[in-house]
């Protein structure tokens, strides 16, 4: 038997009609598993499908993320949607087009080679044949073979062009979000969240809840108010004054990454090599726990009619959520439908699934009406899974040429990926007989990694050793946040390289180029340096700095090099940022630039400002006042360039600028100060301490 070489999405969803349907009136219905989270994927997928099918964009309708109506493509994570969903959709659409042409050829008694498609109509030498996709109606309940050739790049009309985002008009006109959905008879729930993991509820002011016009529901320590409208739910939640007992203790100093070092952990040695002889240099870098900081709160609606449970959620994975809910509630998966609806920007494993589980539990406790759960801002800061703190130590032995002859990285981190564990869902921890904590292992870096993501340098460094310690009981819940370990790891690698370059008396750009044979990495680095006039870099140490950072996301997705100019006195001011990126075949260049810029700004915010504060009551950052992010007045001018590497496949770009930006800022600040700050965020206090 010949091995199936189709992409995983197509192996898992092997029939054409799982992806595509022709609807009356000349419409084409696309069904995909990857969902819009603000990254513009819906538009990119529409461009791909329209090009391969030879139809106009306006014919397309998209269903994304629906356990009843769209394929299972796993999670929308890791900048893989264009590669996975886009790649699969291309194959499906090319095959459907070829089937239609073959059927048309049979009916017309002409060779298929002489036929073409123009906006869904079959033509011969440019003349209509009277046939089109809708009249041909070739049955699509057949296996995908992958045999149809894909269009060459020269034949693309929409791929590679700046098609405007299909979802933005609605969002600029007051609609477009799950938050806006109203169902008849909908009631509003708010769950009382325990401040510490495992805390038990010992008291609640039920009279105050009733006075606020709400009812009180409880199962174990899962407790909620239910009210006829959102305002009453908010008021009852504020009036409930729950008292909690016990739970995993938290102290202020647990917020530092250094606290993770030495805690009970699962260790993995992902690379091992002999050490070289010579002078050894080492340094430790860190970043604290960080918050998603999504602007809009997590929200979900669930309805249970006594037999079937339907959930609307902005989850990143409707099928995994369904699996968890089935186990949590004790219903078969066939009795649950999960439908994706758009939420506020999603940068990872946020509160979406937790809010969905809360709505689902409330719906099964109170069958009948649709139940909407919307978190408050403090819920987001204190109860979404945080991005974990990380400590990264690099030690290298220097050769006579000043270049590293070996490289040993040691990482201490809490889990970066907790979504697959039902026990890590907030509601699961509050129900009677909570499930035991799972073991947390770091995903292997060869598959993308977690704490180990981008821990392996992109450079030609021999004798690599990589040790990762995943702390099993961190003080707060942690999971995936944009880029996982990529940002702290690239910050550490690129900072360390700058220090090694300085020690060798070599310019940081030249030093990197001596270690870099990957031509695409060299291209982005040289391009970004030229954009920033790197050769005009001044002597540092006098308050103005220019720094660079380079990375290839997950060591296999898009390349990005970033150069940052800063001014530093008591704090860091970003002056200019230049970025060159190579994402292979770019479906929508303007959308790609939007993602590059967004990643740069978010990473700059994390690098300069962000840290989740901890205290005896758990997370003490509860509002934007406690957790400032970069504002308009702190945004520098940003220039991006997309390199065109020729006819090569697309590479996910959504996260590729995060690590290089953090690194470039760190290096620019070091250049400005003449001394290095190794712990993020690079705050006023840390600058004062460094000087």
């Amino acid at each position, binding site marked *: 038997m010949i091995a199936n070489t189709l992409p995983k999405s197509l192996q898992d969803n092997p029939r054409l009609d799982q992806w595509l349907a022709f609807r009356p009136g000349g419409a084409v219905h696309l069904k995909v598993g990857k969902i819009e989270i603000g990254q513009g994927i819906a538009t990119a997928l529409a461009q791909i499908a329209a090009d391969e099918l030879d139809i106009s964009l306006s014919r397309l309708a998209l269903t994304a993320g629906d356990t009843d109506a769209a394929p299972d493509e796993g999670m929308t994570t890791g900048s893989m949607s264009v590669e996975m969903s886009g790649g699969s959709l291309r194959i499906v659409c090319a095959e459907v087009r070829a089937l239609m042409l073959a059927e048309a050829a049979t009916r017309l008694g002409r060779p298929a080679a002489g036929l073409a498609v123009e906006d869904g109509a079959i033509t011969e030498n440019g003349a209509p044949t009277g046939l089109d996709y809708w009249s041909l109606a070739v049955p699509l309940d057949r296996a995908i073979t992958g045999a149809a050739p894909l269009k060459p790049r020269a034949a693309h009309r929409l791929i590679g062009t700046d098609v405007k985002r299909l979802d933005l008009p609605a969002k600029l006109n007051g609609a477009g979000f799950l938050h806006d959905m109203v169902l008849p008879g909908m009631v509003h729930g708010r769950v009382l969240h325990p401040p510490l993991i495992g805390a038990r509820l010992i008291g609640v002011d039920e009279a105050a809840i009733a006075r606020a016009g709400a009812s009180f529901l409880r199962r174990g320590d899962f407790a909620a108010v239910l009210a006829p409208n959102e305002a009453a739910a908010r008021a009852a939640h504020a009036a409930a004054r729950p008292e909690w007992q016990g739970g995993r203790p938290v102290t202020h100093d647990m917020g530092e990454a250094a606290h993770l070092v030495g805690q009970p952990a699962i260790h993995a040695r992902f690379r091992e090599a002999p050490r070289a002889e010579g002078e050894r240099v080492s340094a430790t870098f860190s970043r604290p726990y960080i918050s998603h900081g999504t602007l809009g709160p997590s929200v979900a609606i669930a309805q249970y009619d006594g037999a079937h449970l339907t959930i609307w959620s902005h989850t990143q994975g409707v099928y995994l959520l369904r699996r968890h809910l089935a186990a949590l509630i004790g219903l078969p998966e066939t009795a649950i439908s999960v439908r994706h609806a758009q939420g506020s920007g999603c940068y990872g494993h946020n509160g979406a699934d937790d809010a969905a589980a809360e709505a689902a539990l409330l719906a099964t406790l109170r069958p009948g009406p649709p139940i909407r759960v919307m978190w408050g*801002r403090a819920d987001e800061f204190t109860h979404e899974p945080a991005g974990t703190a990380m400590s990264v130590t690099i030690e290298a032995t220097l050769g006579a040429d000043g270049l590293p002859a070996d490289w040993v990285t040691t990482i201490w981190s809490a889990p970066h990926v907790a979504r697959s564990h039902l026990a890590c869902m907030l509601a699961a921890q509050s129900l009677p007989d909570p499930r035991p904590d799972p073991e947390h292992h770091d995903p292997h870096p060869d598959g993308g990694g977690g704490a180990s993501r981008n821990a392996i340098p992109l450079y030609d460094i021999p004798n690599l050793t990589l040790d990762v310690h995943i702390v099993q009981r961190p003080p707060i819940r942690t999971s995936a946040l944009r880029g996982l370990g990529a940002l702290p790891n690239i910050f550490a690698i690129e900072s360390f390289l700058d220090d090694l370059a300085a020690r060798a008396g070599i310019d940081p750009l030249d030093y990197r180029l001596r270690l870099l044979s990957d031509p695409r990495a060299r291209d982005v680095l040289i391009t970004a340096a030229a954009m920033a006039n790197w050769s005009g870099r001044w002597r540092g140490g006098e308050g103005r700095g220019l720094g660079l950072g380079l990375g290839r996301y997950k060591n296999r997705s898009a390349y990005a090099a970033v150069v940052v100019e800063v001014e530093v006195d008591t704090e860091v001011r970003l002056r200019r940022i230049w970025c060159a990126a190579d994402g292979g075949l770019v479906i929508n260049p303007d959308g790609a630039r939007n993602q590059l810029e967004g990643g740069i700004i978010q990473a700059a915010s994390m690098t300069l400002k962000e840290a989740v504060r901890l205290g005896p009551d758990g997370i003490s950052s509860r509002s934007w006042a406690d957790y400032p992010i970069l504002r308009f007045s702190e945004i520098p001018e940003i220039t991006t360039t997309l390199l065109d590497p020729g006819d090569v496949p697309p590479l996910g770009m959504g996260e590729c600028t995060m690590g290089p930006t953090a690194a470039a800022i760190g290096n620019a600040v070091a250049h400005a100060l003449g001394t290095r700050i190794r712990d993020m965020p690079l705050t006023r206090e840390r600058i004062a301490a460094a000087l």
Partner: protein
Amino acid sequence: MAVAFTLNGAAITVPAEPGDLLIDTLRTGCGLTGTRYGCGEEQCGACLVLIDGAPAHACGRETATLEGRAVTTAEAIPAAIRDAFLAEQAGQCGYCLSGMLVAATALLARNPSPDRAAIVEALDGNLCRCGSHPRIIAAILRAGRAA
């Protein structure tokens, strides 16, 4: 009790008890979802509306205080400003954009051709987490040029 005011150019009378917030009146009472619930603490700007032309946080404003006032929500901002945001593709997730449109409208009303510094100053209270700031600035510059 009831309160009468002008909403997006039309006279309206709505029930308003003390403590009722404008954001709930707009979203729940009037079905105008363009006013986004962000933080509920007047810190992010997602819920901005214009009250007599000045930006105000709907999440912190009691509906009962609006007697005789004129309220403008994101749904009713000038089309040219919305078009400028579309032309610049100024947004990623889009959740903050209602507040940005409202803040931009207030700015452009008093300064029809603002420069970058004026835009930054006017929008500094509006948070965006996706990092669409440069495009939002470009959109308002564009709207200013078109004015």
